[in-house]
């Protein structure tokens, strides 16, 4: 299965969520905060805190920790 992270094609083997997929690829920082521009990553891991929000297939504010990877998915994170 192929997914795209910031445009780069990456082979994904497991069916897992976007958050753990990125963490395993050393992407701890997922976004910058709106007001102060501070980095944030996953905090609660179960869809409660909204700290892990990323843009998926053009839709902003998707929780990485509860979104399953899908073939062809395009994920935008802070690089």
């Amino acid at each position, binding site marked *: 299965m192929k997914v795209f992270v910031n445009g780069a094609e990456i082979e994904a083997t*497991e*069916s*897992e*969520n976007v*958050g*753990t*997929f990125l*963490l*395993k690829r050393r992407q*701890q*920082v*997922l976004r910058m*905060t*709106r*007001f*102060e521009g*501070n*980095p*944030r*990553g*996953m*905090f*609660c*891991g*179960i*869809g*409660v*805190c*909204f*700290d892990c*929000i990323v843009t998926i297939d053009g*839709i902003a*504010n998707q929780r990485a*920790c*509860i979104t*399953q990877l899908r073939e062809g998915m395009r994920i935008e994170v802070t690089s």
Partner: protein
Amino acid sequence: MSRTIIIGGGPAGMSAAVEIARAGGDAIIIDSNPRLGGQYWRHGTDAKFSHDGERFFALQDEISRHPEIEIRGGSQVWRASYQDGVASVWLNDGTSLASETLLIATGAYDRSLPFPGWDLPGSMTAGGAQALLKASGALLGRAVFVAGTGPFLLPVAASLVEAGVKVLGVLEANRVNGWINHLGAVDFSKMKDAARYFKILATAKVPIRIGYAIIEARGDGRVEEVVIAKVDRHFAVKPGSIEVHKCDAIATGWGFTPDLTLAHSLGVTTDIDAIDRSVVVHVDAFQETSQHGVFAAGESTGVGGVDLALIEGRVAGIAIAVQRGLISTMDAKNRSVGLAQERSRIRKFAQALLSVYKIREGWRSWLHPETIICRCEEVTFAQVRNVVHDLGASDVRTAKLLSRCGMGMCQGRVCGRIVADVVGAEIGRSATDDELRGIHNRPIAHPISLATLAKQGQ
């Protein structure tokens, strides 16, 4: 009568479904996770990470043998309401369901306390760290500290060790010396579990430090070091006890908060727990809430762990079967043998744990003026103080409105209780019961897309 709606496919929801199926009834289990199991049984396809697997597979097998139990995984309930004896729920796939019987089995999430640097990447909740690991073997870091309070810190640290993480220390803020005996006196099986965790931690030479807390995390854009201190009985830092250690992640946990969002929308009566003042769903001996036909089981009725969730789920499932006329009360009695006693035994045990692992008010002394209180809206401790002392907010609601605390995307799930306690302390009183209940008032439980909304309007 329509099939029973079960919100939450964790231990409570699964065991209720099994009892309903055994009585010949039908039900639909809705869960935002694609798989059954809830927070406790969160395992990947790799069975290595499945924990206490036999009980899970027994329940799952029995459910799958009953086609009249539908599982709607990957589906979130974003709204619920109750009118004229009928409960309705709206799902994020644009559909809605209604029934005369509904079970709230929505569980709990980690309770967090703020400290300087808790918002840095690499700082996670204890349950979150466990969830990543169980779901897909993802590690929050390579060298980590586990800290906070509660018996849950031990299994989290033990599973991290087993997964190859270097656990630099387990810090328990409460004075719980001799607590293992205390546990054993009440629940022998729990003592066996604890002994196993201790063994794993001892073999890996993980220091377990009682009366210590992480009071700060620091780093350039992510956690690089932590400040650890010895704390007194009230969690205030003991002078001269500060240590700084390098690490690349931390997992902190302070117990759990029952998820009452949907319960609140369904208009059920809630109680305030006498020990930790958390808001819990009020249920009778049959797990029925104040709304006829609406039942609740598991952590939403008070945090008590997986064994209690399983029993409450069974009691609720049997009572739902009676209410639907599927079985007689006599039959129900035969199916419920021993359940009520076991439930009250575990509830007592849970209350005892809550009082040992209580959050003491001295944690507020760890805050710096610039410490984030509301992670979503980036509101600092200084700003919260400012709305109380300079703008004259004299209750939690006003302080929230003026500071935007708790008004972000998580709708106060993370900071709701924190803000109530901080504002209460600043105005010189504790949060009232109504202020605590107000934390869970979220008319829209989860954000939905406009497309879903449009679909639902048709």
